[in-house]
């Protein structure tokens, strides 16, 4: 298994290289530049000397390939560069944002798993009932809800109409501040998990070993817990794991809406400001998380299901 993990890790390298190259090209063909932004993006009479100084400092006066090689060279030794506009190392900027985003993602995933899995399980056991139809209609609606709208609705309900939670902000990072953004982000995933769980359970319920278990007179609760749930969990874990990798990159809208100090809002800001090193740093980070989580999920399969073996 170690050999397999190592091979997968090596396969990351071309993926990451490709992403960096595409990103680098995209960012550099975008019109506008950070020097103008730094000099005052709005129309103020930007000092021409200043613009030239900044372009030179950031290497924007160099040809594209020189800049790319330069960037790759520094990346190889772990240097993400320095933010154009904030004049801070990208690594420091990222470091201060990772924890809030991770917290938000974990909260959202927690909400999704704790509500989605039982909901799906319940629906599957009562297939075709009103409860099943109702919860699945709810799940489909959940997947389709735009985060922006849902976030505002929740803010209105729980901060304006019934003022029990703070409408936005990180505050001290406590539970009360995380509930609304966490739920907003988690609802879509909850719905997806509920549907996945239901599908898995429905399928398992028709298998031979469940029929056998019933035939030998095992009580329903034992069948459900020992046989159905365990087997269904493989699929649920895969879905949840893969979702989690993507989740870190999906926090953008929620972070902006709730003034959450995470990687997503840093990414959006840096794109609009043409702060290329920060954008690259953020994307690189999100890709790495995605790839690593995927790898972790793959490796976990083997742990849960001994029939799977990696060579």
């Amino acid at each position: 298994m170690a050999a397999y993990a190592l091979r997968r890790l090596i396969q990351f390298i071309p993926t990451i290289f490709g992403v960096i190259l595409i990103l680098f090209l995209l960012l550099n063909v975008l019109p506008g530049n950070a020097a103008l932004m730094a000099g005052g993006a709005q129309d103020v009479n930007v000092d021409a000397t200043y613009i030239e100084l900044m372009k030179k400092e950031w290497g924007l006066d160099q040809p594209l390939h020189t800049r790319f090689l330069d960037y790759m060279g520094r990346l190889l030794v772990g240097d993400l560069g320095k933010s154009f506009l904030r004049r801070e190392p990208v690594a420091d900027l990222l470091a201060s944002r990772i924890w809030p985003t991770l917290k938000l993602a974990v909260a959202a995933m927690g909400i999704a798993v704790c509500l989605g899995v039982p909901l799906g399980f319940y629906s599957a056991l009562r297939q075709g009932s009103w409860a099943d139809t109702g919860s699945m209609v709810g799940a489909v609606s959940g997947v389709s809800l735009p985060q922006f709208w849902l976030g505002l609705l929740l803010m209105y309900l729980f901060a304006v109409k019934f003022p029990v939670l703070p409408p936005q902000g990180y505050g001290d990072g406590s539970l009360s501040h995380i509930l609304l953004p966490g739920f907003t982000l988690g609802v879509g995933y909850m719905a997806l998990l509920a549907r996945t769980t239901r599908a898995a359970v429905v399928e398992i319920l028709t298998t031979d070993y469940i029929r056998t278990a019933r035939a030998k007179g095992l009580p329903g609760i034992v069948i459900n817990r020992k046989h159905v749930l365990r087997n269904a969990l493989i699929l649920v874990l895969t879905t949840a794991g893969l979702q989690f990798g993507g989740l870190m990159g999906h926090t953008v809208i929620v972070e902006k809406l709730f003034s959450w100090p995470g990687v997503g809002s840093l990414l959006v800001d840096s794109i609009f400001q043409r702060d290329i090193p920060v954008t690259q740093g953020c994307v690189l980070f999100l890709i790495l998380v995605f790839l690593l989580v995927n790898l972790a999920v793959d490796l976990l399969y083997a742990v849960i299901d001994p029939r799977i073996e990696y060579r």
Partner: protein
Amino acid sequence: MKKLIVAILALVWLVVYDGDLYGLDPHKCTRIQEFLVLMNIYRSLYRWDPDKSMPVLDLATRAEISADGLTYTYHLRPNVKFHNGRQMTADDIIYSYNRIADPKLKSPSVRFVRIIKGAGDVIDGKAPTISGLKKIDDLTLQLTLADPVNPSFSLREPGMAIVPREAVEGKEDLFHTSAPVGCGPFKFVRWVKGSEVVLEKFPEFFIPGRPLLDKVVYRISNEASARDMAFRAKDLDATIVGSAQYEAYKNDPVISKNMIEVAEMFTRIVGFNMDFEPFKKKEVRQAINYAVDRDLIIQKLLKGKAFLATGWLPTSSAAFDPTVKPYPYDPKKAKELLAKAGYANGFTIDQAIGTGNESWGVVVYEAMLPYLKEVGITLKIQQMEGAAMVERNKNGEFQTFIWSIGSGPDILGTLKRFHSENTRAGGNYFNYKNPEFDKLLDRAAAERDSAKQLDVLKQANNLLFEDTPVWYFNYNKAVLAQHPWVHGFKPVAIELMFQDMTEVWVDDSSPRAKQK
């Protein structure tokens, strides 16, 4: 009513690019976003007085001006302390201005420090220190200008703040990210990046008994609808009002009584490219000004959140002429003018560029379309991002552009945009050339008597209105909404978010009155 405890003000950037602060070092910052916070941590030699609508001395009590208008002798306040407890002296001002000019720092404020004699040499790396700055004694500073301009407009800029050497040298990065030291009314507490900035009262501020607030929190939130929720939830004490919320707030019986409205020094226009054949004719430019019912666009599209423009300079400018009437909506007159210019059958504008802004973006072009069609002008609209548009403006790659451009507070400075010596890169995107206008501006620049200068500037502004290098649309109506317990915010015409928190206070009906 008892005094305040905590004020929470929503932090927003009014322009297209929103987001977190870049940092806390005033000499490295340039945007409204940073300065609306930093102006309460730091102080500059002058400050903007919103009541007089002009800059006044802040760190000095008086200034003597030499007869040639070039040398200013400042007598500094004796009781100005930095947040580290040390007294501010003339050395600190000299240090700060030299730091800004230092090419190694690459400060965006170089454009302000340039007015001092010898600063240009430092910026170009030809001299180590600015020759126009001289310390007479600890509390007396002599400043010599390169040209006889009014220095107060540049020296009041928040980017020209005075900083203590010992807090900066050797700690450049910390100073910028987490340990700023100024001499303003509030001390820095913390900055949760992308979320909020917290300041607390500086008890040794140079105005006794000020500031009134113990604590100020700036929320970083650039989603107007989320800000609206937070304001309604009373989580924000005050907020800037976007056009989407303006109508609802206006109709709210409580909020409408607590709004501050001001004509900010931004003029929204459609700029004409003088290299485009039809725009070479004044009649064509005027015809467009007659052809569109801008009143209706302001009422319907902008929901009344704008003041009709009657010139480049806004109503809050000292050189604004209230007797000037706006161009009326008169399509007949427009057609006559077009016919006179030889465009009786109209023409097509292929490159009408603009941003997606809801108040001064392509939506306004769309509203203009039917009116222009009526007089035979076809408009082909291209939407792009602000950064892309600036580049095209600077290269003259457009026929018209629509934008919001700063038109104050320095009257001469903002009118210089239209001087024929100014390049496209320098802001004369129109490539506007009018010898008569140049003459007026040169006269104003040479005039020492401020009343006479104002009169000449007024003439220049009126000439510009008549000659129409732009379609005059409106002046931004900036609106601040506050809860009834908030007191002391002012209608600041340079930028409504530039609120000096020194005199602001909150009474005990605030939900945060008991919070420390």
